[in-house]
């Protein structure tokens, strides 16, 4: 879907951090992406590579930490695991399940190269 916009969002976050913390090279960008988020990872990977060109993160790896989807089943009144927004409750079969976790799209951490000290 809008993976180019997401990649540009990641670039903004990386460049803000580079200015704030003074690193000049990013080896890897670690993302947290929920199973219920609207991100297509392979499409994002393609856009990531394009968008990071000419930045401190050019050539950086994009690593993804998946987050499992969870929902609140109203009949069971408890949290259950779901893989899709339209999944039924695995216990009672009801579709009265509201997504509560796994919708995240976050930049979690950066593996950065710090400048050689004293040079």
């Amino acid at each position, binding site marked *: *879907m*809008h*993976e*180019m*916009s*997401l990649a*540009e*969002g*990641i*670039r*903004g*976050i990386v*460049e*803000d*951090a580079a*200015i*704030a*913390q003074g*690193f000049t090279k990013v*080896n890897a960008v670690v*993302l947290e992406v929920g199973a*219920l988020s*609207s991100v*297509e990872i392979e*499409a994002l990977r*393609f*856009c990531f590579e394009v*968008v990071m060109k000419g*930045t401190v993160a050019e050539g950086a790896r994009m690593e993804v930490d998946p987050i499992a989807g969870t929902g609140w089943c*109203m009949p069971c009144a408890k949290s259950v695991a779901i893989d*899709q*927004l*339209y999944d*039924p409750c695995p216990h009672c079969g009801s*579709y*009265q*399940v*509201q*997504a509560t976790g796994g919708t*995240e*799209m*976050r*930049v*979690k*951490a*950066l*593996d*950065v*190269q*710090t*400048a*050689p*000290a*004293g*040079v």
Partner: protein
Amino acid sequence: MCTVCGCGAGEVMIGRPNGTAQRKSAPTTGWKVASVETAHDDSHEHVEVHTPASEHAGHMHFGHGPAHAHAPGLSQHEMVRIEKDILGKNDRFADANRGWLAGRGIFALNLVSSPGSGKTTLLCKTIEILSSRVAVAVIEGDQQTEFDAERIRATGAPALQINTGKGCHLDAAMVGQALPRLALTDNSLLLIENVGNLVCPSAFDLGEAHKVVILSVTEGEDKPLKYPDMFAAADVMLLNKTDLLPYLRFDADKAVEFALRVNPRLKVFRVSATTGEGFDGWLAWIESGLAAAAGGGENDHKENTLAAGY
């Protein structure tokens, strides 16, 4: 340009292309770095003890470089914890829009659907009925042309067209630029017609009170399952073109059931923008939203910084 959905940047036009329009800068070629201040949202400590993978608040430090220490002339890897939402920048603009609207008691709806679901006709019908009771303004989003804004203006309501160029959705910064240009009345209704696209607009908060998804009976009843993100993001679904049901093999109950599977809290109205059938419920829902927005706002005209980052 995005090869996935055609999304691109640099061709956004807000308003008529007659000199007053503003072209969005092209972030794909000239990304402007946000202020350092925003990058300091998270606490960050420089840790001097270089234990392997030592973790401290806001900063994980791995002393795993070639020298296992900071030594002159040797570079070092470091893990910096960021923890920022990818769409955080859009969400900040959306919050500013929401504050600006609340300060004026304006009830804003973001209408989303596939192309051809009848959004513009539905808006025209809604304005036609409501405009004697409340001021209505419209922001129109399309990749190209001013056609929809012209249709809205024909009803007498003010409309501003945003052309997204290659973009596949409106974002909060575009809407933030449009808001002050519409001369909106306090305690009024603002309808934002998003780009016809059942995928991308779901992720972009514009600062609206609710997303309203429109599904027409000339589409498939399984659309809510095929495109679940949009139905999950919306609070209201309008099942439109119900006057055509006698001529179609479309199971309306099934469509509603599928939508509720994705989002059990979805409020559903079955309407026909052509005949006005089912509009009572939809209009009553808008009126209750208008009353809540007018009651909640103190009309203090808070001048939030709208789209300051553009």
